[in-house]
């Protein structure tokens, strides 16, 4: 039976966009605390490989998911240690995490290439992660904007010195943010290997980690905007494949460019307005009171 074009594109976009959304939310939490993690790609790869391996060994996809999340947390904590406690340059540390992720995931995933794992079970057509994606975004919004912890998080991201002066502990908050962020990033990666493709392949995230970083900007550091953003970015690829299936002649490369061009335009426009919604201390290190 043939589904309508719109339904097909929407379904594909949702499937494609789910892993993007989790990864974006993960990065967003960290950036709200002032830490930019360029190594999200590495975190996702670690999540995908560990999740796949764990699901293969235990036979339980949910255990695989849990393992993926924890592995993502571990990766982010490694990154966090050098960036927070050792005050290293965040960009360099992020790129290092990316390289780390490529290597570690290749090593971990190697014995499991070609394994057949139980995929995430589906309810009404979609797996649990897809159903939970938007609620997670909403939940994260509530946490960031409606809880004291979230307030502290944002304070640290805006002005860590002031936050410190008002009694918060920026380093501790940042570690917590990165842990949560790593968990979400790992899950984002695992969705690829445990739901979308049911395989593990070196480098299978194919740049999604970086797309997620762009998405955070696109969403202007607001989890709610990340949802349509993930649909748009996931949709570009889905759209051109669906168009091809119907015989239309559309260049996949031009289509895949559109989300990035869109992000650039939004940045320029928003920069023009000078409304800076980025956390002011994003990228800088906190040096304590000296």
């Amino acid at each position, binding site marked *: 039976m043939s589904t309508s074009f719109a339904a097909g594109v929407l379904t594909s976009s949702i499937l494609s966009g789910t892993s993007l959304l989790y990864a974006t939310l993960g990065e967003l939490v960290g950036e709200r605390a002032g830490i930019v993690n*360029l190594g999200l790609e590495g975190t996702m790869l670690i999540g995908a490989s560990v999740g796949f391996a764990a699901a293969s060994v235990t036979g339980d996809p949910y255990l695989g998911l849990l393992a993926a999340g924890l592995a993502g947390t571990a990766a982010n904590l*490694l990154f966090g*240690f*050098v*960036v927070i406690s*050792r*005050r*290293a*340059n965040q*960009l*360099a*540390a992020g*790129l*290092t*995490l*990316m*390289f*780390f992720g*490529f*290597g*570690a*995931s*290749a*090593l971990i995933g*190697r014995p499991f290439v070609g394994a057949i794992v139980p995929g995430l079970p589906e309810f009404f057509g979609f797996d649990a992660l897809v159903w939970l994606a938007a609620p997670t975004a909403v939940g994260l919004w509530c946490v960031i904007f409606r809880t004291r912890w979230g307030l502290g998080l944002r304070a640290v991201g805006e002005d860590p010195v002031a936050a410190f002066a008002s009694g918060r502990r920026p380093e501790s908050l940042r570690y917590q943010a990165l842990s949560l962020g790593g968990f979400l990033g790992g899950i984002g990666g695992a969705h690829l290997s445990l739901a979308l493709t049911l395989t593990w392949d*070196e*480098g299978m995230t194919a*740049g999604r980690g*970086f*797309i997620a*970083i*762009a998405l955070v*900007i696109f969403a202007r550091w607001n989890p709610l905007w990340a949802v349509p953003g993930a649909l748009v970015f996931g949709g570009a690829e889905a759209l051109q494949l669906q168009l091809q299936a119907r015989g239309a002649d559309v*260049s996949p*490369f*031009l289509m*895949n*460019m559109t989300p*990035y*061009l869109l*992000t*650039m335009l939004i*940045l*320029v426009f928003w*920069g*023009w307005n000078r409304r800076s919604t980025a956390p002011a201390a994003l*990228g*800088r*290190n906190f*040096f304590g009171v000296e």
Partner: protein
Amino acid sequence: MPHDSALALRGPSLRGPNLRGPNLRGRYLRTMKFPVPRALIITLAALAIFAALLLAAGKDPLRAYADTLVYVFGNSYGFSELFVRMTPVLLTAVAVALPARLGLINVGGEGQLYMGAWLATAGALAFPNLPAWLLLPLMTIFGFAGGALWALLPGVLRAARLVNETISTLLLNYIAPLIVSFFIFGPWRSPESASYPQSPAFVDAARLPSIPGTRVHAGLLFGVVSLALYSFLMRRTRLGLKMRAIGGNPEASVRLGIPVPAFIVATMAVAGGIAGIAGMAEVSAIQGRLVSGLSPGYGFMGFLVAWLAGNSAGGIAVMAFLFAVISSIGDILQITQDVPYAVVNLLMAVILFIVLGQKRRTP
């Protein structure tokens, strides 16, 4: 923006302004992230950690290390490949270091490399009948222009205070390979090779010469020359001084009358151009045509190399060489022990994490 106060301009004194800048000789060792003996310890520690990881995966790290040393230092091809690997990284590292002196962060080396390769290909395809001594310089200029234009946009956006260059260069990294793919799947698809997506092969006149018997090519000269020019510019010219001033204290520089926005735009463009030359060298000397998958992350490696070297020219050369040796470990592991090449990234990352994890007294 992070200050590099160590290189800031000292104020005018009774003897007039210090045009020579701070004494950098003693600084040479310290502008690299660490002095030489410490470097050795770090490398050994990283190799040990990596060996442990390999052992856990059931492989033989000592044999791999031994094989690599034999291959890289005892075999002329293995040794020459070090330079082949180094060449693009030297260029992309300068592309990062140059703007870094202004306090700018250029992570767009990948994209600039691709666009340089793209425009150089356009040149090669448009003028196949020119003799090499005309075509190669033309392609080099095109390569430079391609990368420069790609970095110009982020430069302008930053100078106009619209968009941070870290983000804009990062985004443009994704668009560039898509543009290349569009062309090799479309207007430039070679009719030979059963329509496999790649450009037609470059004519011989469009190929950069290499040392016979190896793949070491003229691009290495570009790299060395850029490094030398960069070093000369920074240490011995007024221009370099002004750049360091901007990097050290932007507001003061403006008040001193230095046209900061112009410097930002020009520096980004030149940096992008240098990365673009790396792209031109890759397609001209190594690949011989435009293909997708040109760069296995040379732009990012350049960033890390420049950062590890503290943006010093000598440090960049040393670090690039080190990275090349490490990459060779990956080759050996892949050929002799069935370990995916990607695992070598783990070793690089371990070294970097150790370096990043050093205790620092000043930010």
